[in-house]
């Protein structure tokens, strides 16, 4: 009996802790966004974050998209051959990439690269009293550190997703034409014929949501980092895990909202 009660209590504690964390993250997000309407806005920090998060993530997102597009073309061709539907390769590659794989894989790659680096940077700043120093220098850390990063990621990730979509489709095209004997004109024709604007736009909206999540998690865990190297390491790991899980969960919710009807 005691064992069962203990087990139930541990489930209850976990749920309560989870809810408390969600509440703290929601407050952190609202605090961050509230600074949008309150000057000053630190443009230099914003542009720096835009380069760090957007431009420097381009190679990793591009490579991921290229190989995913190629692999997707091979898989769909192999699967489609079972019922003589090999011709759907271009359209399914394009729809699959723009709606799902482009934003999700792009988001996860950015989470690995950016959430970790933001959490480690801000966590180290906290441990070395740089956050306190900012405050004593009349600079609000939320305004100076968090808002520029969150805003930059929210704007940069959809652009990365858009570029990733193009590169991914190109990956599918290279495999389709080079390995699967599609003619270049037919491949492009099939891609364009079946792709709708909403397929692309829905993916870009997802990208913006994932960018927001990635930067928010990096900043939240960095700002709440524990002491010492272990504290910063734990904050970095938590930021990547939380960002990845939230990306996948919010992807399901957004897909439900966008396409369930």
């Amino acid at each position, binding site marked *: 009996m005691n064992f069962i009660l203990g087990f139930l209590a541990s489930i209850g504690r976990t749920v309560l802790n989870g809810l408390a964390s969600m509440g703290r993250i929601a407050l952190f997000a609202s605090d961050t966004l509230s600074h949008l309407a309150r000057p000053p806005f630190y443009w230099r920090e914003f542009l720096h974050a835009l380069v760090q998060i957007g431009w420097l993530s381009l190679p990793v997102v591009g490579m991921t998209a290229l190989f995913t597009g190629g692999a997707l073309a091979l898989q769909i061709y192999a699967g489609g051959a079972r019922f003589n539907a090999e011709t759907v390769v271009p359209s399914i590659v394009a729809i699959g990439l723009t709606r799902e794989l482009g934003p999700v894989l792009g988001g996860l790659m950015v989470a690995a690269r950016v959430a970790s680096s933001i959490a480690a940077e801000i966590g180290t700043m906290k441990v*070395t009293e*740089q956050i*306190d*120093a900012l405050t*004593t*220098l*009349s600079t609000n850390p939320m305004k100076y550190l968090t808002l520029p990063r969150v805003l930059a990621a929210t704007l940069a990730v959809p652009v990365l997703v858009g570029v990733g979509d193009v590169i991914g489709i190109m990956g599918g095209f290279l495999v389709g034409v080079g390995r699967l004997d599609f003619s270049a004109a037919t491949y492009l024709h099939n891609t364009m014929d079946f792709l709708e604007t909403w397929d692309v736009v829905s993916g870009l909206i997802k990208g913006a949501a994932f960018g927001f999540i990635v930067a928010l998690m990096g900043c939240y865990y960095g700002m709440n980092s524990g002491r010492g190297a272990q504290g910063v390491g734990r904050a970095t790991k938590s930021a990547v895990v939380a960002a990845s899980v939230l990306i996948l969960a919010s992807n399901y919710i957004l897909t439900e909202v966008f396409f369930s009807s």
Partner: protein
Amino acid sequence: MIELKNVHKAFGPNRVLRGVNLTIPSATSLVIIGGSGTGKSVALKCVLGLIRPDSGTITLDGQDVTRGDRDAFLARFGMLFQGGALFDSLPVWQNVAFRLLRGSLKRPLPEAREIAIEKLRRVGLKPDVADKFPAELSGGMQKRVGLARAIAAEPEIIFFDEPTTGLDPIMAGVINDLIREIVTEMGATAMTITHDMTSVRAIADNVAMLHDGVIKWTGPVSEMDNSGDPYLDQFIHGRAEGPIEAVR
């Protein structure tokens, strides 16, 4: 004048400050001494508003520090952190001129740089340090850059958190002399926390001994050696035996 009245602060079950009463008259230098973990840094951070006390009042010239315009309040302060707390991503001159590059004290870029270089010179650093990054400097140089940043906007009140920790005796002496000179020259109110008794004698007008979350003794530095207070006596002579337990 800074005044702390019956200030309490606890972190969970750990009651760090248990009723601190302290007065720092304007244009004087107070040094707070005490063992590790006795709440010196917490007291200092409470005054700056980095930590909110559980109870008690802290006033600056009669005004409660937790109320009113926070930016205007902080603009009156400069702070030297224990580890320097320099921003790694900015070159030295931008660290020093941080306050002069944004906010209410904003100056044009060339003027801010000129002030930064002048402040670096004031703490004994050459102008070529200005374009280096903090990671390229030694510990002593980082401390001096931190000191230059603390005085860059010519604050009325300067706080020093363990200014000589981790420095060799000669560099510690240089920092102590700089602090004394700058405080005297600027007519600033200074509050320093340290374990280093050489620093205490070099920097302080008045000394306060914090132990068990309360001020055990306070008075002019000249009376420190003949205070008759057993806690202060044990601390300044570094004795293992006495009312302060070695294992805390």
